[in-house]
């Protein structure tokens, strides 16, 4: 591997290379840092890059450890980034919002401490839609990120910074968060792997809540195996999050058996998620099903009636939860400078919260509306019931017939910056294929599959039953292995 291209290594290649002495952690990190400096001018993937000298010192420590035969962790000094809604002690955590401009986290998220414990080096906090509300990264208060495949296009969102940074080699892997597709959607748009774990597999301690009943932290990486490696590091029961699953269920060896193939698995292609898709996208999914059949799986079409109601249910629940989760931002205990002098409490809080961007403001008004005394029965409660019925329908499909449910990750191709940001309802439909996994708490992954005639990435989504994350990774790896070679991301 020559000097300029070492940073294109996958995570597994990195670990092999650094532990075999092919290159040092310091070399790799230093290359990455100088590449970030150059790439950021084009992509705006990061909101905040950590102090390079401190990071390099950490890398040297890892190198000394490798030389002296000490344990350096599964990640062995690998440069990774995290979405800016994940807390890291002493580091700014803005959630892409001016509301939290001055906020420094007093503690590490569990995912962060687990990355650190396995020798991961967190180089930067990645750009995102404000408080993760959006699917283009255009709603970041610090400017949109750009798609490395075409900088006039959105990278998807809300973890757009994480996906763009991973695609553009500004890190080996990144952590995003997925509330309704926020890891899978940008992964699909940027041609990287995006993984949304079973709800409860990864601790949310330190993930700033948007819609806490359905969201998960998930890895974004350049290969399925890389995602599995990172997932293994961050997954598992955490006493700081009562909703995490027991250790036995959250087995850590996600790389184990990943090459086992898809032979004998039954794959259902969801009608409701493919019917209205862009023809190029629909054709990609068709080819993908042929690939899987060639690899020994059986594919057939399946209809899930409740999917048609998933998006309004999803937006109702997320808006109601967001209005509650974001209520704490009253600027009294932390936040930005705004003196309380001369204000009455309610007017101060309303004034301070005027800093939320328009999309967040809108969703909180929406959330207040659908959960208010007069409307909760018609909207919030009904949305919960739709979620319950959808969950039953999906559980039945897995129990009776299928190991994997497949569909396009996003029904349309990536679009231009500014193209849809003014039409919230048409943006809603971009979420149609991803929200079902969140509402039903099932694991789902977006695997890069093709590039359109216009040079834009197309991802394929696979979903498995609860706690079947290993099966899902095996199937995703089988698809990745079978697909036609993909072009390199343009420089």
């Amino acid at each position: 591997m020559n000097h300029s291209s070492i940073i294109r290594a996958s995570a597994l290649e990195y670990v092999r290379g650094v532990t075999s002495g092919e290159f040092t952690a310091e070399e790799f990190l230093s290359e990455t840092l100088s590449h970030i400096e150059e790439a950021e001018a084009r992509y705006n993937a990061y909101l905040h890059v950590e102090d390079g000298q401190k990071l390099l010192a950490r890398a040297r420590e890892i190198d000394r450890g490798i030389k002296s035969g000490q344990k350096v962790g599964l990640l062995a000094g690998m440069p990774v980034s995290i979405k800016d809604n994940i807390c890291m002690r002493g580091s700014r955590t803005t959630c892409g919002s001016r509301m939290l401009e001055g906020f420094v986290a007093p503690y590490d998220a569990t995912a962060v401490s687990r990355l650190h414990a396995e020798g991961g080096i967190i180089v930067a906090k990645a750009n995102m839609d404000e408080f993760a509300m959006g699917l283009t990264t255009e709603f970041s208060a610090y400017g949109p990120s750009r798609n490395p495949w075409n900088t006039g296009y959105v990278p998807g969102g809300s973890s757009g910074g994480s996906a763009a940074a991973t695609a553009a080699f500004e890190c080996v892997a990144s952590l995003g968060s997925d509330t309704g597709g926020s890891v899978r959607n940008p992964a699909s748009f940027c041609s990287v792997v995006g993984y949304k774990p079973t709800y409860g597999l990864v601790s949310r301690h330190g993930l700033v809540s948007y819609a806490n009943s359905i969201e998960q932290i998930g890895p974004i990486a350049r290969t399925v195996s890389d995602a599995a490696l990172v997932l293994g590091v961050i997954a598992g029961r955490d006493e700081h999050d009562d909703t995490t699953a027991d250790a036995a269920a959250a087995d850590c060896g996600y790389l184990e058996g990943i090459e086992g193939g898809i032979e004998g698995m039954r794959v259902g292609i969801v009608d409701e998620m493919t019917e209205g898709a862009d023809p190029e996208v629909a054709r990609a999914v068709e080819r993908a099903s042929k690939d899987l059949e060639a690899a020994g799986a059986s594919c057939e079409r399946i209809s899930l009636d409740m999917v048609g109601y998933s998006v309004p249910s999803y937006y109702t629940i997320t808006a109601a939860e967001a209005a509650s989760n974001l209520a704490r931002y009253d600027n009294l205990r932390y936040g930005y400078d705004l003196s309380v002098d001369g204000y009455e409490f309610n007017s101060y809080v309303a004034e301070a919260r005027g800093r939320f961007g328009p999309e967040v403001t809108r969703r909180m008004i929406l959330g207040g509306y659908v959960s208010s005394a007069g409307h909760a029965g018609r909207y919030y409660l009904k949305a919960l019931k739709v979620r319950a019925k959808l969950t039953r329908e999906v559980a039945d499909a897995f129990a009776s017939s299928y190991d994997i449910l497949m569909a396009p990750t996003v029904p349309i191709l990536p679009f231009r910056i500014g193209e849809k940001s003014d039409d919230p309802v048409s943006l809603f439909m971009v979420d149609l294929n991803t929200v079902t996994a969140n509402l039903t708490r099932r694991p789902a992954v977006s695997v890069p599959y093709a590039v359109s005639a216009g040079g834009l990435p197309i991802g394929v989504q696979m979903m498995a039953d609860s706690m079947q994350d290993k099966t899902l990774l095996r199937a995703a790896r089988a698809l990745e292995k079978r697909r036609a070679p993909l072009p390199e991301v343009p420089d």
Partner: protein
Amino acid sequence: MSRDGGSGSGGADGTAAPRPVIGLEIHCQMTSLKSKLFCPCRADYRGMGPNENVCPVCMGMPGTLPRLNAEAVRKGTMIAMALGCAIPERISFFRKNYFYPDLPKNFQITQLDMYGDTCIGGRGSILVDGGAVGIRRVQLEEDPGRMIYEGASARNRISLVDYNRAGTPLVEIVTEPDFEGPRQLRLFLQMLSDMVENLGVCNPALEGAMRADANVSLEGGNRVEIKNISSFHDLEKAVVFEIARQEAQHSRDLEVVQETRHWDAARKITIPSRLKEEEKGYRYLLEADIPWVRIDAETVESLRSRMPESVSEKRERFVSLYMIPPQVADVLSSDKLYSDLFDAARTDRNARELANIITTDLMGLVMAAAATAPAADRDAADGGDAQKKKRDDAASDVISVDGLRELADAVASGNMARNSAKQALHEMAKTGKSFAEVSSEMDLGLVSDESELLGVVQSVISEEPQAAKQASSNPNTVNYLVGKVMQKTRGKADPQVTLDLLKRCLSEG
């Protein structure tokens, strides 16, 4: 059932006012727990500097999640059981959303029966003063922080918040409007206070550990909520005042306005709340960060076996097992401090004497000691209840369990007269000496040595020739002589030895 205070004043037209209807909402802090409801900060924040007892969770910092305290669930279940409630199969939590400076997340995590019965207890009932008081529900929730105001005038007043209390586990008990008068109210609150203390949930003596709001109406009339009542003592006064106020309205044919009123402790009246009625839009949401918790039959059984006996069970045990007179058992069982002391120092043999010593002498001594003790600095802001806390401390200064046991043993075995025991107790309390030291130094032990007693017996016989003569035929007269010997020895003569000696001397002539 008796009714008193505030009742019965007739209307102007001579018809009696409708009967008062009273309901309560009691908030009880679980001060005996080691940590808050959702984080490991202290449950009892008293005596700490501002915002020292906080962490990212109870400060509502971004990204933090509640970590439900298992013991709070267990203790809450025990309270619900003690109040005769049904225990649900699963409990769940909700967010009550409203903006207030003492609420770090701008929502309070509490319980509701919105989607099925999922509060920690419900539909209970308890007998108070012969009448049943229904318990609508028992719920767990978090206490908010405390607001402090600085500055003399309203203009330059500054509001400060101390979040040490935020997240303290509370159990809220909502009664049905079943109370018929202040007496039943008072007895209920006393019973509840004893109960939570007895269950090891709360030290009711701590300031602000138990707080109550009351709903008062006259049958058929509008309901008034009374808030801002800082002690149970004031609660009773507030309710009495409010009933009288509503009756006066009624007698003048004025409608009682449905409203929230505040208790003005200084003026001893209720006044309409100045604050606007907070918008009712609490937008209750399921708290998805806390999974629903199963309270299975096994858990309920093991909690039941862990439950200390109730005051009435205790009283029953004292009477039937140790033959303690009912009036003494009443006093002893209703006070956890003394019933614990009793059980710790009790043997099958000394129980009756022990109960006697505690109720006739020890209680008075402890009361006196507590009255002179300086206020503990942690509770500088004395509530009426702080006395009780001081009293608990005083009791352990007065006497140890061992000392108490030795004293009762001595009386029960006939080695010490009751009078002497009283003196010994006072001496032990005063000097802090052990029973052995006191009994030997003060020569409080019984004189059972015949040679020592013989002289006294002989002098009594010679001083009472009349009685001595009758004694051979009338046993009551012998007892009279024993009494005389006792007088001369100031109660120290061993009664049995004295009797034998007297009989011998008299028969010898």
